[in-house]
């Protein structure tokens, strides 16, 4: 019943550490130390998720990723010491579902694995149950009439104000809102003293509730010197 995760890295200690971490969370873990091994294991075993290092001997992570993608559509999380935005974009554009920079934060890694698995395993249900008026953005699903926000299918406990802000941002994905406008539309009041602070506090709270790593948010973002926005994410596999 337990989901099986394949961990691939040329550094045995890292594979070991990740395995222990994931096993503690109750996942079954398969280990591979290069791309060729990873391909073999992925073909043989029933694997639900792959944590894949990019820089490996024999077959590097990106090539392995493409090869696996040819046959299977399972979530793949890239792991790389390259932390630059361009590397991340390259990995994601080649079909990875997520990207974690080394040295990763163990809890974040676990959270991302869990998030991906949840979405992967319950995807069919979510799609089947997709209701009218529902807004899906990556990990997030928003049901306006229920006033409910789901992250990886689980309801997020938001206060009324936070929900209003999320409502505003998720309905206008990619649009940047100045703090004054958010304040006017959410509090339904003219922008007052320390608007920026008030809005920022709520944004931070929302991030803590919905982001996997609130320090490097993926959804609710500050556009410095302009305002706030929610990024549009691809919503499925």
């Amino acid at each position, binding site marked *: 019943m337990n989901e099986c995760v394949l961990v691939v890295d040329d*550094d045995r*200690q*890292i594979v070991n*550490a*990740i395995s*222990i*971490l994931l096993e*503690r969370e109750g996942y079954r873990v398969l280990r591979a130390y290069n791309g060729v091994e990873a391909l073999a294991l992925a073909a043989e075993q029933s694997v639900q998720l792959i944590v894949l290092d990019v820089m490996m001997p024999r077959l590097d992570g990106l090539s392995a990723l493409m090869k696996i993608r040819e046959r299977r559509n399972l979530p793949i999380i890239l792991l790389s*010491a*390259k*932390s630059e*935005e*361009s590397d991340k974009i390259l990995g994601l554009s080649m079909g990875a579902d997520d990207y974690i920079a*080394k*040295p*990763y*934060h*163990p*809890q974040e890694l676990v959270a991302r694995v869990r998030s991906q698995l949840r979405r992967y395993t319950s995807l069919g249900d979510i799609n089947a149950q997709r209701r009218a008026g529902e807004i899906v953005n990556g990990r997030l699903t928003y049901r306006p009439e229920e006033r409910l926000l789901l992250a990886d299918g689980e309801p997020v406990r938001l206060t009324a104000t936070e929900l209003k802000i999320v409502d505003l941002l998720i309905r*206008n994905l990619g*649009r*940047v*809102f*100045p*703090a004054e*406008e958010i304040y006017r539309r959410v509090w339904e009041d003219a922008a007052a003293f320390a608007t*920026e*602070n008030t*809005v*920022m*506090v709520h944004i*931070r709270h929302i991030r803590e509730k919905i982001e996997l790593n609130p320090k490097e948010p993926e959804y609710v973002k*500050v*556009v*410095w*010197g*302009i*305002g706030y926005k929610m990024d549009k994410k691809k919503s499925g596999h």
Partner: protein
Amino acid sequence: MDTKWTRKKAVISLLAFVVGINLTVIFSGLAVLLMIDVGPRRVMDAFQGDYQKTRLFRTQTGCYLEALISYALEVDGDGRAAEAVRDENIRYEIWNKGVLVASKTSGIQGSLENREQDGYNFYLQYRDGAVQIWKDGAELDLYGDGFYREGWDQWRLPGYSNLDTGSFLRLAYPEEWDWSGIVIQMAVAEKPLDYGDSSGMYYVSDSMVHYRREVYAVAIPLLLGLALTIWSILWRRHLRQALQTVGGWTGQLWLEIKLLLLAPLLLMCYGAVSAIYYLFWYRQLRGGPLVLLPIAFCGALLYCNDAKWNWDRLRIHSFCGWLARQFRTGEDKLALQTRIRRRAVIMVTAAAVLAAGVAVCDILLFRQSWRHRSIAGVAVSLLMGVLGLAIFVWLRYFWRREKELSEDLGRLWKQVEAVRSGDYSAKAEIPEDGDLAVLSQALREIQSGLENALEERTRSERMKVELITNVSHDLKTPLTSILSYADLLDGEDLPDHVRDYVTILRQKAFQLRDMVQEVFEVSKASSGELSLRWEALDLAKLLRQTLADLAEPIAASTLVFRPQLPEEPVMVWADGDRLYRVFQNLIQNTLQYAMEGSRVYVVLRVQDNSAVVRVQNISREELPQGVDFTARFVRGDASRTDGGSGLGLAIASSFTRACGGAFQVEINGDLFTAEVVFPLYVGPEPPVAGMSEKTV
């Protein structure tokens, strides 16, 4: 009120000076003339109360006696001598050997022996070759020591031991004459009357009045002049002020005008000098009116005064200077070649005008010579014509060369400008034989050297970044293991002190991770490899957002933040994420190093088309002077035991520069000021405002 009086004083002193000096000079000259012409004796006599006490009277009396004796001796056969004594103010009787020879005694009571006649107070008697004189009833002492000296103030009468009647009459052979029997009685009126006679005793008394008047006419203006001069000297402070004011007025005149006016002034000076010359030499006012003298004096005074006050500005304040300044204004705004050409135009024009003038003269010379059949003249004029033509040809050549040179210079200048703006391949199109071809070639060589150096630098910079990228990547892999196992260890059931060790391990590992990341970023930013997303953003809003973002650590600290941010947008063109990192680092820097409980000022101001952000705080530790805080791994204290990576300010600095701003740290005692300056963005309005209207 007071200043008005001071001004009046100045005017008065100036007038007194000018008038006084003029009067003194002119009338002292006249006084000298008077003394020379009239003599001091006669001038003094003019002020005698009694005309009979004057020298002129004595001379006149002597003359009359001479005439009367001559008459008696019949030396004067035609009676001309007696004619001379027709003066009605004189009465006389001439006796020779007891016989009355001649007399004029109308209005006389009896004989002239009676010496108390009405209206006559002066009696003279010649007897036995000597003279006796009674004046107002008293006899005068005539002879003194009895010796006559020419030029002394004596009566010239016969009776001296060295002046007998013969020598008195200037007779050639005195022994032929006998004057022993001659007796002459003479009386002179107390107050001579005018009988229409131009000479005589009336003239003596009248000339006194005349001379007196002349002396007054000279002395009064002279004294007045002296008094005025002394007055002006006493008020010399005011005089100086007045002269300075006048100097200020004359200083406004162009030098050329002054020089032009100098000619008539010199003419007037010449007139004045010639007037004085004629006056002294010929006693005539023929040389020119004396009025020229004060005018010339005033002119000279004006010039001297002008020279005194305006000597330094004399050359500058001239029409030529003005012209030159007009020419030079705005010259620095012109291109180099235009400037050179302008100067050449002036030079060539001046030369051409000069040459044209010479040509006209030459043509006239030629015509005259031709008419007068002067071969030499024709030859000289022809030669001059040829020479002039040669000069014209040379001028044309000079002008062309100058034009080419200026154009080449302009091209060279453009090349230099291009190099300055970073275009190392720029080339000036200068002909091979041009004066500047070598220079341009040299510049080309410098350019290629620069280009090579720049390439070299770029390459080494890129290698450095690659090196750091690789190193940071290699560091990250072991770090991942350390972090992972530390985390695993943390999850184990451990004794408390071991758990503490693990916590420290984890903290330091995270810190190491941050440092590796920061080193990577700084080196990328300083080598210009940082990818930037440019957009127009509101710096004030960015600062508010940054402060809001860091609200929790700020609230946790003891510091008091005093932001001073304008309400209106301050737009700059930059990468918002990088700029956020700049201010995040600055604020974290203050959180880490500012003195507990002190205030931190975050100020944004707009100055001269720039947005200036200052983050100011008091340092907890003493700040070392002369340290570049923006250098990598530099901290206020050298011990490096705190949690900072030492890269905060380096990141702030390199990110600011990458975004096109200027970053500067200023240490003043314990006051630490970081200054970030960005040029204001002047473009279309930020798109945010337009969008908010669309969605409402």
